[in-house]
């Protein structure tokens, strides 16, 4: 992996740990967060990626413009290892998730397309379902607060939420297969 990254040929002194962290942590963290969707795991994996990568970055004088790409690659390897560890603990692991296609989406054009697909899918839901998804997932409301806003029972909110996500899953699959039709 490391060989894929250019090594500096000049005599520039290696950057300090503080300089490297300060300049790179946010895009690396965002990259990981995109895949785990929670801060706790994103922070842990970001730190682990830096621990694994830092020695190589500094000693081999990887060009600074390559730091972020290198760190993202290390982070992906950590995610793979993490899923394998889950498996080692006796849990099933979805090896399909190791597919680079599923892990990519780092390209702005691809991210933009993904966003459009998701918005199109959300638009295809009925009013209640869309509203529940917006409140619960996009705005982070609790079930209780969502129930108050919608003047429904909490149980009802959970049922709507479940059906909405089932529908979304099918809609997203249809969009990606180019066979979108009305699914309500």
């Amino acid at each position, binding site marked *: 992996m490391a060989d894929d990254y250019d090594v500096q040929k000049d005599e520039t002194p290696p950057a300090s740990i503080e300089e490297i962290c300060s300049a790179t942590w946010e895009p690396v963290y965002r990259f990981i967060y995109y895949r785990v*969707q929670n801060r706790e795991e994103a922070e842990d994996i970001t730190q682990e990626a*830096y621990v694994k990568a830092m020695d190589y970055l500094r000693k081999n004088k990887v060009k600074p413009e390559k730091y972020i790409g290198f760190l993202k690659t290390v982070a992906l390897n950590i995610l793979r290892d993490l899923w394998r560890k889950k498996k080692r603990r006796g849990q099933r692991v979805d090896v399909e998730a190791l597919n680079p296609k599923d892990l990519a989406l780092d390209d702005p054009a691809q991210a933009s397309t993904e966003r459009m697909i998701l918005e199109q899918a959300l638009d295809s839901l009925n009013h209640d379902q869309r509203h529940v998804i917006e409140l619960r997932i996009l705005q982070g409301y609790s079930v209780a607060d969502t129930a108050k806003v919608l003047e429904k029972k909490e149980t009802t909110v959970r*049922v709507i939420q479940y059906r909405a*996500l089932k529908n979304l899953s099918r809609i997203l699959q249809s969009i990606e297969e180019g066979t979108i039709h009305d699914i309500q």
Partner: protein
Amino acid sequence: MTSNEIKLSDFIDRLNAERKPDEDEHTTDSPELKELYRTVKRVRTLREPALPESDFSQRLVQRLKAAEQHTRRQKVWPWLAGLAGVAMVFLFIGNLFFSNHRNMVYAMEQAFQEVQAYHGVMEVVETNAAGESLSQAKVEVWAAQDGSYYTKGLEGAGAGVVTVNNGEQKWQVLPDVKEVHTYPEFPDSYRFAFELGQEIDEAKKALSVEEVGEEPVAGREAVVLKIVPDGGEAYHLWVDKETKLPLQKESALQKGLQYRITYTSMEFDEAIPAELVAFRVPEGYMEVSESPEQTIRHWHEAEHLLGFAPAGFETAPAGYSLDRIAVVTDEGLVKVYYSNKEERFVFTQGKAKDAFTPAPTAILGKLDGHTAAIQAPMGETVGILSGGTPYGGAGFHSLVWQEDGFAYAVQGGKSQESLIAFTEQLTDGTFEVMDSGGWAPEVEVPVDWEKEKNDQKSVDSGSSPWRLDPAFVAQVFASLKLSPEGISGEYPIKEDELKVVQNDGVAAVVEITNEESPVERVYLQKLVRQDETGIWTVVGYDER
């Protein structure tokens, strides 16, 4: 409402709280939930990520510096220089030295036995493939024959950090965060690695020790030895001609880096100064306990705290003393610590929570008829070993077994052999490695030696660690037999469809219980290297 509806809602709640979910798309057994969890995560990507607190970059730097310090401790080995106080002993053994491998090591061993405590400054220098050298750290070291030590970082990333193990307690003073972290004194998984005794033990176990020249180090005359360990790359050791003790060590070039560690000063004393090994929390510092253990005075207390009467091993095996008894109440474990001058052991017992499942990398055997598993050194902490203080790596050995609804483990010792001997003495039992007779695959698999050697190098440098796990290697092999066109998605042979039925550390047999698998048993051997760092290679199989 169905359980999936509840699980899905819980999953969303965890993500909303920015916490790691208990179950995710990679671990759920439900295909429906897997899809739903993925969909939730996809929808959440429309949100702006929750960024860490503003001090995250600083915390990252602190973590990196701590890791750097730890890495050096793992890489660095002990050397000793400038030995004046024990010159008489060295004169006595001088004639023995450098005549052959056995005498060289013997001379070091004898010299070290006369050292009660030493105090020195050690420098770690890293050299890259281009020959550029960089001083990584300077560390002040106090170490005593009884195993206690005090280290203080003088320069480098760990500057100011003090680590002490006085034989009763271990602690680390971290001035950056003004905290004192306390740990059990044993097992000491992050023990400082500069001990002379440890270095000499490694030389004793080496495959070969050869004198390759002479070169002064830190102003002292030294002989250079090339040592080929039993597993791993050869390294060089500079031994003081006068003191007959190690002075400098240089690792092999690995991943373009080479480490050289030198004691630039050294003096000897009768003991480590008492004030250095007396536990004290400096003013303004906070004490943070990293130990889940509670020391008790008697077995009856364990019974009261845990609800069961521990098996009676109150009497220490001959030649050992019982140091202390502790309980981990959350895990329902009782631990007994034993030691003699040479070694320490901890015996752990608790109610068995699951069926006996040895780590896939463990050597299997029988302890008085009960299936037992040895890891040397310890790798995975499964079963009873997963409770209490984590002990990873650091050369610890473990032997685990279950009997009458209880799980037992013995950890410690300098070698697999001494662990077995202690356990046999403790339990008044006999351990036998599982018989590897009848090891004959129906179909032999040709071996590409060049590829295997390259794969071993790759694993040595940290890639593909799964090659060290016979169950994983068998899983990949059997899965490819079942899906010869390649594996996409999950392995067709699942983890719970593999059973390591034989493993003597060099040869293993893994049974495949999946009825659709054309392979019933996979035969593996460690062909390139026959120790814990050796990769497993499939050499044959039985057809179903």
